[in-house]
C-alpha cells in the first residue's frame, strides 16, 4: 500500500505492507537515527515526532501515520545549525554512545514546547520512557534544563 506523509518537512509517498511499523518504514527510507531497542514500547529509542508529539514509532503502524507529519532528528536542524536542545546535549556532555540521543532530544523538544520552564522532577518524568544505559541521566536532565533556558532566552521556537 502507498503511505503519504510529510517527513521532515518534505511530502513523501512510500510503499509499506499493512503490518509495517513506522519504525521499519522510516529506517528503510534511510532515516537511521530512528533506533530499534526493544520493539515493545519500553525503551523509547524509536521516538519520533508524530504531528508534533513524541511517540514510540515501534508501536505505530505505518498505515496509521498516513497523512501525518513526522519529524526525526534529521529534520530538526535550525537553519543548518544545531537545534538548541542538540547544542545543550553537546555542551552538557549528555551523550555517550549516542544510541538514545535522537529519541531523548525529540522527547525533550515535545516536552519543552508545552512546558518551557520545567523543574528537574518534571524533566525526569518527561524522559521516563527513554532508557539510557550510559549516562545515568543526570547530564541529560541538566541538558534539558539548559535547553529550556536557551529557548526561553532566545527567539527559537521549540
Amino acid at each position, binding site marked *: 500500500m502507498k503511505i503519504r506523509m510529510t517527513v521532515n518537512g518534505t511530502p513523501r509517498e512510500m510503499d509499506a505492507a*499493512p*503490518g509495517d*511499523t513506522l519504525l521499519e518504514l522510516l529506517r528503510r527510507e534511510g532515516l537511521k537515527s530512528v533506533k530499534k531497542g526493544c520493539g515493545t*514500547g519500553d525503551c*523509547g529509542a524509536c521516538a519520533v515526532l508524530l504531528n508534533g508529539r513524541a511517540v*514510540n514509532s515501534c508501536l505505530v503502524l505505518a*498505515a496509521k501515520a498516513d497523512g501525518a507529519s513526522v519529524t526525526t532528528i534529521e529534520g530538526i536542524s535550525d537553519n543548518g545549525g544545531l537545534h538548541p536542545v542538540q547544542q545543550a546535549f553537546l555542551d552538557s556532555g549528555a551523550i555517550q554512545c549516542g544510541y538514545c540521543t535522537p529519541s531523548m532530544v525529540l522527547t525533550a523538544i515535545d516536552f519543552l514546547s508545552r512546558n518551557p520552564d520545567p523543574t528537574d522532577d518534571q524533566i525526569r*518524568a518527561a524522559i521516563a520512557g527513554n532508557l539510557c544505559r550510559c549516562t545515568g541521566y543526570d547530564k541529560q536532565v541538566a541538558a534539558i534544563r539548559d535547553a529550556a533556558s536557551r529557548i526561553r532566552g532566545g527567539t527559537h521556537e521549540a
Partner: protein
Amino acid sequence: MGLPHVTSIVRPSSVEAALNLLKNGNGAARLLAGGVDIVRQPPSGDITLVDVSALPLRDIAVTEDGQAISIGATATLTEIMESKLIVNLYHGELIAMLGRVASPLLRNLATIGGSIGSSHPWSDIHCLLLALGAKVEVYDGSYRTVDLADIAPRPRQDQLFTRVLIPIHGNGTAVAFETFSLTKFDVAMLNCACSISIVAGKVVAARVVAGGTPARASRIHAAEERLLGTELDAASIQHATDAAVSDTGLRDDVRASAEYRRVLLKTGIRRCLLRARARTALGSKPLS
C-alpha cells in the same frame, strides 16, 4: 517485518462504518486506537484492523445535564491530562493517576477507549474509573450507556466504545488512588482507589476498589459496608482495611507474592481513605 498477520488497515469515517467493518470481518477484525496493545501483542491469525483513532470521538466536555465529564473514546491519555476540565477534577487525582501510566511517549498514543478495551488486570485507569463510578457509552447499532464494571474484558465484534462518562459529584465526595510498582514505569503490583461521599458528617456512599490482585480491578463490597454510616474515624478505617484484605482473593504471580500484596492492599486502602477524608469536610476534624 512488524505484524505479518495484519492483512489490511481500514480507516472508517463514521462510528456506523466502523461497526459495520468490525461486524463484517468474520471475527478477524479488530479495532485499532492508539495501537499500544494491539501492535505490542497482536492477536494470532490474519486480522483486519479498523483504525478508529481518526473518528470524531476526541472531545472532552461537560455533558448537557452537567452531571458528568464526557471523554471521547479516542482522546489520548495526554489530551486528557492537558484538558482544563480534568485538571482540578477530584482534586487532580485523575491527572495524577494518568501521570503514573506508562510513559509520556506512550500516553501520546494510548487512548481511553483502548485502555478500557484492553482492561489489563493491573490497569491503573480501570481501577480509578471504577471507584469514580464511570460509565461507558457503547455503540452497537444504537447508543447505550453501560457501567464500566459491566464491560467484559475481551474484544467484541458487535460494539465499540464511543465515550467514557465520569460523574461530577459535589464537594462532599472525594477520591484517592494508590499504585505500587517496582519502578515508576513498571506496571502495578497492586493498585487501589476509594471514593467517599459525606453528608452531615457521615459516610453515605463508598466505593473501595483493588486491582492487580493479580485479578482485574473490582469493588470490595465488604470494605464499603464497614464505612457506611461512620464518621470515617480511625476504627472504621481499620475495619474497612481489614475487610478489604480478608475479602480480596490475593494471589502470587510474577510481580508479587500474595503475602506482599496483603501488606500493599492494607497500606494502599488506608492511605486512600485518609487522603479522601482529608479532602472532605471531615478533614478539618482530627482522626479519633
